[in-house]
């Protein structure tokens, strides 16, 4: 790319955060280029999850017309897995099947992100795929004024750079805006997409039409390691996956694929995922460090958004893509203002953080700021307590002629012998604070 060409903004990374930023800026008439290292946007992306579409709806109100959406999540379930059992609960609301569909869809990211990138192109941004960025360009005063892409004539100039290069964000680290990911607060997740006939999925999960489920599994879901598992229904496939913190999986000597095989064969999971045709195996990191490990969000000419900055809410709500889009939107709007003022220095980019602090994205990050630490320091939630819980509930419901009062008394006494009630209660309180 010749030196004569200069963009207003370079967005590094074509995931939900980067594409959202590019979309709002292109709509406002800025010259935007998105640099995506994959063959197409989405080709490096995967998630286990629900795509929450509240921000997307603001950008593209009629996205439901042609976006590759799989199913509307009307049914959610949270379970505590034990080594061979399950204690769970959840909801199914038919109201969520109606507009606006609770802004909760299952999607397959390779298809969805690609669709979104086409919308961004239509909005006027340029998208360069197959373009990996290795570093920054600086002017004679040391001000960042572009990026170095690993290609011939790879110097690309721009007034402002939005780093949306995902969880590993080597670029934010190069600028010392982000500390290295920590093994105890970074989750490696793996998943498989298994194809089934549509009718089979509807029957197996009790679904009407385009309704879908999100089943999430805690407790012993990662074979005693700190982690969780999931099942989501797509149109004609099931996404099943499991993840754990890198530290804990190393300590438990668990390879993620072996763990996934174990999870798929758990007595509570197997009947739901058994059979079908396996279509894809994928792995990805999740930045689980929360509020306390967010990157620095801005500096002169640079803003950091989405996973690159650490915006994931790994509590029960499992939000990420919507936080990515929210940060991308606010970053994009900030840069539009900066362009109006023709000032891309910290004076202007700092507005990004100020506005984020008022947003639900940041408020939620703050609310759950203790999550990673609590999980890391409470391994009993994943190994010991699920077993105790199962014994308690199973005995309570065992039919053997013993009176309920006698049962209760016996179980409480046994529980007290196994676990100090004060530490049990404190762990419960600590756990609650990070869950809802």
């Amino acid at each position, binding site marked *: 790319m010749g030196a004569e060409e200069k963009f207003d903004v370079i967005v590094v990374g074509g995931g939900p955060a980067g594409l959202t930023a590019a979309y709002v800026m292109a709509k406002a008439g800025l010259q935007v280029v998105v640099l995506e290292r994959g063959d197409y946007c989405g080709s490096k*992306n995967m998630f286990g999850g629900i795509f929450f579409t509240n921000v997307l709806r603001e950008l593209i109100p009629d996205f439901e017309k042609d976006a590759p959406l799989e199913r509307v999540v009307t049914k959610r379930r949270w379970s505590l897995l034990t080594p061979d059992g399950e204690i769970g609960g959840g909801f199914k609301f038919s109201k969520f099947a109606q507009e606006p569909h609770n802004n909760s869809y299952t999607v397959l990211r390779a298809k969805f992100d690609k669709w979104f990138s086409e919308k961004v192109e239509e909005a006027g941004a340029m998208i360069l795929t197959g373009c990996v960025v290795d570093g920054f360009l600086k002017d004679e005063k040391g001000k960042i004024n572009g990026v170095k892409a690993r290609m011939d004539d790879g110097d690309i100039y721009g007034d402002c750079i939005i780093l949306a290069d995902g969880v590993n964000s080597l670029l934010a680290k190069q600028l010392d805006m982000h500390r290295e990911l920590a093994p105890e607060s970074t989750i490696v997740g793996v998943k498989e997409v298994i194809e089934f006939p549509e009718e089979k999925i509807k029957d197996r999960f009790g679904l009407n039409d385009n309704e879908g489920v999100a089943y999430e599994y805690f407790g012993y879901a990662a074979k005693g390691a700190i982690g969780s598992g999931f099942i989501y229904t797509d149109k004609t496939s099931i996404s099943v996956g499991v993840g754990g913190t890198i530290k804990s999986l190393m300590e438990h000597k668990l390879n993620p694929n072996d763990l996934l095989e174990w999870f798929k064969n758990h007595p509570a999971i197997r009947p739901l995922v058994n059979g079908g045709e396996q279509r894809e195996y994928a792995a990805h990191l999740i930045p689980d460090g929360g509020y306390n490990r967010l990157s620095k969000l801005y500096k002169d000419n640079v803003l950091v958004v989405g996973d690159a900055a650490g915006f994931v809410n790994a509590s029960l709500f499992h939000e990420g893509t919507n936080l990515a889009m929210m940060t991308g939107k606010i970053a994009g709007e900030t840069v539009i203002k900066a362009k109006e003022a023709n000032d891309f220095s910290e004076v202007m980019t700092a507005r990004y953080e100020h506005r984020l602090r008022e947003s639900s994205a940041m408020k939620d990050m703050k609310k759950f700021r203790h999550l990673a630490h609590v999980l890391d320091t409470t391994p009993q939630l994943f190994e010991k307590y699920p077993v105790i819980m199962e014994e308690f509930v199973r005995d309570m419901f065992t039919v053997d002629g013993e009176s309920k009062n006698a049962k209760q008394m016996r179980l409480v006494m046994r529980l007290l012998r196994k676990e100090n009630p004060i530490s049990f209660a404190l762990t419960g309180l600590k756990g609650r604070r990070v869950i809802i």
Partner: protein
Amino acid sequence: MSKFTSMEDKLGLDKFTLFHQTHLKIKDGFKTGEAAKKLVNDKLFICPAKVYTLNEKDEVVVSFENCLECGTCRVAAPEAVEWEHPQGGHGIVYRLG
């Protein structure tokens, strides 16, 4: 039981665009011997694509062509792994994601 359970089978499901050069390197001091054994057995066994193995001479073998580019190895063993993105347009190509 799933049809495909082994690592080889799983990776066979995926599409890769191969690049001739590795984007993953083991730093000096970890390539062979006890350090290599320790690295693979204590840490890098965690790679979801089992990219890192030991050969009979206790050298680390890096099957970079199987890499899913997740970054687990760089977080698990930053002291030993030199990690960068593969060449643009190469590596894993998720079709579903």
